[in-house]
């Protein structure tokens, strides 16, 4: 690997931007493809598939055997609300390799006794969220049921283009949330990105089951191609 390639690779990784290194294993020829350049690449179909799966692998192209080494950032999960569902959701997400942070300004909820080993930020979203570097590789879940906390957090998630945004509440609750967010300046296209009611419809009842339905929906959003994603939603 050329030093220049290694430096670029490390810079992209530090910035949490996905990158793929393509190596011709017969002769060692190598190039680095940044996520933003995939659409214009001759190997775009293979590159986007491997990136979506977060998996490195081999492909054949024009008689050459190429190894595609995928460097995808570790996915993050930000949970707004240190509620009962979050107590089940946080450890489940960690077992799926997400970096999890729970945000709730209500210190009675955001206590280490209720969330052992989980990073907790007992601050309002405007203070808590900027240092978390919420980005595209972040799943964002708002479950406080309190508009004072959930609404500003959701605006932040729109702004940072999170790959998944979900919010707790019935269809009726969500319709009201849509009106409030619109009044705060959110676009219809942003509001349409919210998964609500949250989670895949698996008939979940208990907090743990709701946590499973949320992680299933997040996984589908991360891994499925766009068309199948619509069918799952």
């Amino acid at each position, binding site marked *: 690997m050329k*030093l220049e390639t*290694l*430096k670029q690779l490390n810079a992209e990784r530090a910035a949490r931007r996905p990158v793929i290194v393509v190596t011709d294993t017969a002769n060692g020829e190598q190039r680095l493809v940044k996520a933003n350049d995939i659409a214009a690449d001759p190997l775009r179909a293979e590159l986007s598939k491997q990136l979506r799966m977060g998996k*490195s692998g081999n492909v054949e192209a024009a008689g050459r055997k190429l190894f595609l080494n995928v*460097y995808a950032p570790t996915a993050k999960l930000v949970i707004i609300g240190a509620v009962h569902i979050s107590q089940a959701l946080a450890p489940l997400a960690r077992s799926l390799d997400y970096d999890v942070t729970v945000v709730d300004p209500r210190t009675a909820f955001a206590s280490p006794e209720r969330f052992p080993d989980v990073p907790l930020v007992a601050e309002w979203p405007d203070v808590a969220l900027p240092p978390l570097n919420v980005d595209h590789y972040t799943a964002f879940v708002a479950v406080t049921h309190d508009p004072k906390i959930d609404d500003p957090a959701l605006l932040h998630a729109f702004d940072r283009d999170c790959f998944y945004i979900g919010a707790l509440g019935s269809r009726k609750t969500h319709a009201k949330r849509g009106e409030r967010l619109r009044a705060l300046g959110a676009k219809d296209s942003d509001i349409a990105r919210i998964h609500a009611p949250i989670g895949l419809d698996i008939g979940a009842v208990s907090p743990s089951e709701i946590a499973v339905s949320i992680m299933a929906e997040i996984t589908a959003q991360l891994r499925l191609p766009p068309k199948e994603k619509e069918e799952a939603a």
Partner: protein
Amino acid sequence: MLNRDEDILQAAETWQSQGHGVALATVVETWGSAPRPAGSSLVINDDGTFLGSVSGGCVEGAVVTEALDVISSGQSKMLEFGVADETAWNVGLSCGGTIRVFVEKVG
């Protein structure tokens, strides 16, 4: 995970900037129950110091030896390790898988 890939690749860059010869070994293909997936990597410098893993410990010693060759020759190599022969308990994978490891010089 003990060594995330970013630390490994950062070490490669740091060693290189300190004037070390450096090689990068990457699992490019696996069959059967290989211990580390494709894309797992190990970096080695010319002192024989290494970071990361390609097999969870089974074949690292052999990879390091080959990597020192690659550092001095500059020629990349493909290595293959499996369990299907009498060397299984010497340099092989006790779990029964097979892996191919691409070793290249950095710089």
